[in-house]
Every structure is written in structure tokens, then in C-alpha cells.
């Protein structure tokens, strides 16, 4: 009976922590910051799609993007983690985080392709579906993690289920090395989890 009570208390603490973190991070950044981020992304997309640097399309695009970002800011920028200094984080994101991710990713994609080539030629496969846990909660972050897992060597995301500590991902692994959830998580996720934690909640 006493063991049961301790178990229940631990469970209750987990639930309380979950709710607190949802309340704290769920609000995200401020509204004008959301509008600014949405405007920058939309305007970049507009310039690339128009494909010229003449003045009238740029002015028209600025107007349309301002209207759209005021109307739809909560769809796009809801999942960004709140932080202290907004502009320094924006600059860090453009000049440090993105090149870092690209550098990590380049080698992993090359490794993935060489790996698949080896499996195609030698047929030494050993497939299985394992489960890994992550502490990321927002939809954008989990989507990005699942995409990156799919492109890294030997793994393919099957499904995502929400748990109390975050999310659980079911991963099809072409060459199963371990069955334990933690070790598999360390091998599969690599450093991507921490990278996403800096931006999303």
C-alpha cells in the first residue's frame, strides 16, 4: 500500500511538472516578435518566387506580407521557445545555428547514402521497429526531429505518440544494434535533440 502511494505521488509530480512547463513555454515569444518572424520568412519566400529585384514587386510584397503576418502570426511562430534577448537569438540562429546544423547534416547524409549502398550490395540487413523517447513537445519540433531521423543513416520514423515526458517516436531501424530505449535514443538522435531544444519548446 505504501509503495502504491509513493508511485502515485511520483506520477502526480510528473503531471504537475508537465502542466507547468506547458503553461510556461506554451505562451512562446511575444506577439510583435511572432509577427516579425512570420514577416521575414514570408518576405524571403516572396522575393525568391518573384525572382527580380525591381521596386514595384518588392513594395507590393511588403504590403501583402505585412497583412498576412498580422492575420496569421499564431500558426507559424507559436512553437518558438521564449528567451531573454530576441535580436541576438535571431542573429545567432541565422549565422551560427543554421551552419552548425548544415555541417552536422552534410556528413550524416553522406554516411546514410554509403550505408544504403552497402546494404543494397551485401544484403546484410537486420531490421526492427524500436521506440525512442524525446523531451520535445511542440509539433514543429517533433516534425523536424522526425524528418532529420528519417534522413540520417539506417532509420525511418513510423509514428509519434504523446507521453507525459514529451513524445515517443517509433523508428524502423534497418540494422538493430540495441533494444533498450535510452541507448537507441542516444545512437539515433545524436546531437539534433539539443539543437532543436535551443529554438523550440
Amino acid at each position, binding site marked *: 500500500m505504501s509503495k502504491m502511494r509513493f508511485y502515485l505521488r511520483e506520477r502526480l509530480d510528473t503531471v504537475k511538472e508537465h502542466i507547468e512547463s506547458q503553461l510556461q513555454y506554451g505562451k512562446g515569444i511575444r506577439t510583435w516578435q511572432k509577427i516579425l518572424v512570420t514577416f521575414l520568412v514570408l518576405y524571403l519566400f516572396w522575393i525568391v518566387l518573384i525572382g527580380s529585384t525591381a521596386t514595384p514587386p518588392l513594395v507590393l510584397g511588403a504590403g501583402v506580407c505585412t497583412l498576412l503576418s498580422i492575420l496569421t502570426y499564431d500558426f507559424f511562430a507559436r512553437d518558438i521557445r521564449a528567451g531573454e534577448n530576441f535580436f541576438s537569438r535571431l542573429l545567432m540562429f541565422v549565422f551560427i545555428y543554421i551552419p552548425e546544423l548544415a555541417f552536422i547534416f552534410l556528413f550524416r547524409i553522406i554516411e546514410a547514402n554509403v550505408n544504403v549502398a552497402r546494404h543494397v550490395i551485401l544484403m546484410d540487413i537486420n531490421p526492427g*521497429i524500436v521506440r525512442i523517447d524525446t523531451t520535445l513537445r511542440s509539433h514543429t519540433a517533433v516534425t523536424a526531429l522526425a524528418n532529420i531521423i528519417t534522413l540520417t543513416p539506417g532509420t525511418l520514423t513510423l509514428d509519434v505518440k504523446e507521453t507525459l515526458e514529451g513524445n515517443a517516436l517509433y523508428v524502423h531501424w534497418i540494422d538493430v544494434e540495441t533494444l533498450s530505449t535510452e541507448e537507441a535514443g542516444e545512437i539515433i538522435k545524436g546531437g539534433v535533440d539539443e539543437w532543436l531544444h535551443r529554438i523550440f519548446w
Partner: protein
Amino acid sequence: MIEYILFLAGCTVMVLGAVGVIRFPDVYTRLHAATKCDTGGSISILVGVVVALGVGMVSLKVLLVLFLIFSLNPVASHALARASHKFGIKPCEMTVVDMYE
């Protein structure tokens, strides 16, 4: 010179991916070959095109196509894998463990 090397690497990866789609035993392993080799080969070939064209608006559009392929291709393969598992397609006999359901 760099662009020709990138074209060659992309073509090799694409051919290996197509052979993998034919040779692998079940849907999930075929999805491995299709997704990784397609995305890697496309990235290699399109980066070769960007290197050949140099800086400009056309290269920006090619980079946009690259980004779309890079971010949308895994989504489609993920949806197909989940749907075929729910549809009742079993993994092949070599499968070690199935923790999903």
C-alpha cells in the same frame, strides 16, 4: 570541375537507390532506399547546378526546390510507412523486433 563530380555522385546514388527499390524484401526497407537515396542524389545534383550557375536569382530558385525536396520527401515516406503498418502489411521474416502495437 566540382559540378561534374557532384553530378557523378548524384547519378551513382540514384542508380543504387533504384536497385535497392527492386532488391529489398519488404515495404519498409524499400522506403529506406527510396527516401535516402532520392533525397541525397537530388541534393547532390541540384548543388551541382547551383555551383555551375553561380550566384543569382535562378540559383535562389533552385535552392528553394532543394529545400522543398529536402523537407517534404521524408513527410511522404513517413505517412506511407505508418499507413502500411495500419493497413496490415507485415514486416519481412528477417525482422528482429516490432515494438509498435
